[in-house]
């Protein structure tokens, strides 16, 4: 691509890889600070468009260079601004993070949106954070044609990578794996009945997770009733330990996370429960160490038993599988980068003005010359004069829009005007 070293698209950023958490904390932006920084960047003419992405793992400023740089290197000007804005010594900022321009900046944003730059490869949260950063910048009036298009592209690409590759399809956390397994037995977990054994930290994590997933029937059985009642304060029912065998046949999923040193659920108890369930499956998640559920329960028909080691092994395998999907994800990214730059290249001033002139000339030839040829009574000499007149008229009509685009000092506004001209005169050839 031609838009490289002198590209008006710039990015400066600091993430968990290169930057210690202390510095990241100082470079973080609250939503108000984002608005304030974007306003100042545009006011000083450093950027004509800008988006700030600030999460716990990264702070990044994306922008289209402005007209107030006065020959300064835009990246240096940006880091210098951020140093002033955050009150962090410039040398500290300069020594960490990354800076990209043109294709590299676009590639980085698309990688971020796809989850390729995340701590947990392929995680989903980042796409929401990119969307929020874009929304915030748009709300502050800091995005126009280019960044609007770029961030839309990033969000689309993030979605495409997630749907067309296995980068995010398999969970890599233990609760995530447990939920995925349960959902392969019972598709909709919300109406299912859950029985949690124990009321400790792990039980509490799963209780919250189930509530977040919309589970409506949660029962907790614990040796100390008061603790299970405490856990059930946001919904669900607490039962004393003695009720375990009686509650078991009513459950679809049993999550056991007690600190007992022996099995609390025997094969015999499970067998009785399954007999009462008349063929309905029962999913046991044994998260206890040592194991709470007798391993032979897994041999029973209609019983599915997974212990914490099994979940860990699956999570690790899924992590490896996600790494294998980086190649296909990058292929999608490169395709989308090409599409973006074919639009961006067409948006550049010279191709737009050439296309505009060609369009007018085509109309002149089609509408004027052809009709003139039909008027045979006009002598050839006069016809030539009329033709020259038409050409001169086209030049006059084009002068104002051409100057308005060409002479705009702010690069962002210049591209904006080119985009408007392409839109108004139907010049779009975007290859998409």
């Amino acid at each position, binding site marked *: 691509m031609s838009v490289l070293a002198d590209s008006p698209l710039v990015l400066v950023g600091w993430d968990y890889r290169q930057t210690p958490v202390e510095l990241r904390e100082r470079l973080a932006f609250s939503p108000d600070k984002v608005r304030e920084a974007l306003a100042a960047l545009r006011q000083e003419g450093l950027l004509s468009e800008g988006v700030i992405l600030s999460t716990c793992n990264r702070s990044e400023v994306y922008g289209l260079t402005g007209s107030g740089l006065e020959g300064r290197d835009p990246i240096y000007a940006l880091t210098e601004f951020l140093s002033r804005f955050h009150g962090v010594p410039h040398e500290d900022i300069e020594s960490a993070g990354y800076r990209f321009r043109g294709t590299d900046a676009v590639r980085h944003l698309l990688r971020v949106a796809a989850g390729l730059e995340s701590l947990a490869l392929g995680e989903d949260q980042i796409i929401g954070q990119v969307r929020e950063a874009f929304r915030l910048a748009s709300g502050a009036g800091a995005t126009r044609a280019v960044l609007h298009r770029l961030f839309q592209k990033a969000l689309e690409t993030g979605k495409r990578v997630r749907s*067309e590759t296995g980068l995010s399809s398999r969970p890599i956390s233990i609760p995530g794996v447990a939920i995925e397994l349960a959902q392969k037995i019972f598709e909709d977990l919300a109406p299912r009945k859950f029985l949690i054994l124990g009321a400790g930290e792990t039980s509490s994590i799963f209780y919250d997770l189930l509530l977040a997933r919309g589970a409506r029937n949660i029962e907790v059985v614990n040796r100390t009733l008061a603790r299970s009642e405490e856990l059930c304060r946001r919904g669900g029912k607490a039962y004393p330990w003695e009720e375990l065998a009686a509650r078991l046949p009513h459950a679809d999923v049993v999550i056991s996370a007690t600190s007992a040193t022996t099995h609390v659920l025997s094969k015999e108890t499970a067998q009785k429960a399954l007999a009462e369930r008349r063929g309905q499956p029962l999913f046991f998640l044994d998260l206890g160490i040592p194991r709470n559920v007798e391993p032979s329960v897994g041999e029973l028909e209609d019983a*599915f038993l997974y212990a914490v080691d099994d979940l860990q092994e699956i999570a690790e395998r899924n992590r490896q599988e996600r790494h294998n999907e980086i190649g296909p994800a990058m292929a999608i990214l490169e395709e989308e980068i090409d599409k973006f730059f074919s639009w961006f290249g067409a948006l550049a001033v010279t191709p737009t003005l050439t296309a505009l002139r060609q369009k007018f000339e085509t109309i002149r030839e089609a509408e004027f010359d052809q009709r003139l040829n039909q008027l045979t009574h006009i002598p050839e000499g006069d016809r030539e004069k009329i033709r020259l007149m038409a050409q001169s008229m086209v030049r006059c009509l084009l002068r104002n829009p051409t100057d308005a685009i060409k002479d705009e000092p702010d690069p962002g506004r210049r591209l904006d005007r080119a985009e408007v001209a392409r839109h108004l005169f139907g010049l779009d050839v975007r290859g998409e």
Partner: protein
Amino acid sequence: MMNSMWGPTSLSIITLLLYIAAEGFSIAHLRRNKPSYGKATYGLLLLAFVIHWFALYLGAKAVRAVPYHDLPASMSFFAWVVILSYGILVLRHREGTTGPFVIPIALLFLGASLMANQGGQMVIKSPKISGPLFATHVTTALIGYAALSLSFVLAQLYLIQNKQIRSRKLGVLFSRLPALDVLSRLHRTAVIIGVSALTVASVLGLIWAKINWGTFWDIKVLFTFLIIAIYLFTLFPRWLGWGGKKIAMLSVTGFMAILFSYTIVNLFISHGHSFR
């Protein structure tokens, strides 16, 4: 008509090629969840389905009867109904991942039909079998068999998914196949349609047999009732106290009985259902 370029045989060959292409895209869609592969699968299937219908229509028009009075024609119609059932399943349950396993049934039967019909001309041998009662009997029977074929595929998928969950081998199929309870639900829908259609077909067949043969009795009738009984059991798992795995295995047994009835009984035992 039969030998023209756009005759039933040529159209059936085009249909076969379209089914093959649809199968390719559906496998690709299963492997990589790319929406364009899914759209290509459904588009090709729809096109094949329409052309297949046209081929059946031309065949029927040529002999002025329903297009399943001989074995090749019945196999072609069966393939068409399998795709119809799959379409209903996709529209009703929004579940298309079973495509790669269902389309081969249609492919198999259409391919066999084309091979059995090489150079053959369809001829109606008896005016009795061109009446509306006979037509409805055969149509409902084939709809029933097609739905039960679908239930066979779903039962197999249930067993595969069940095995994967138990063995902790959670590969591509695990993530792309539906949950066990969804497969059970789909299976149940297919069995209900299959058993209902087969029951209607049997009753109509009995009436037709009484009128034309003077008797209800045919060995095929016994087999059909046995098949219906097997499938009826799969609809009452709680009454049996059976889990999904046993029900799926019973369903597979039912399908084996269908295959036996459709091949051995039709060809060698029952004179009334032999297409001779």
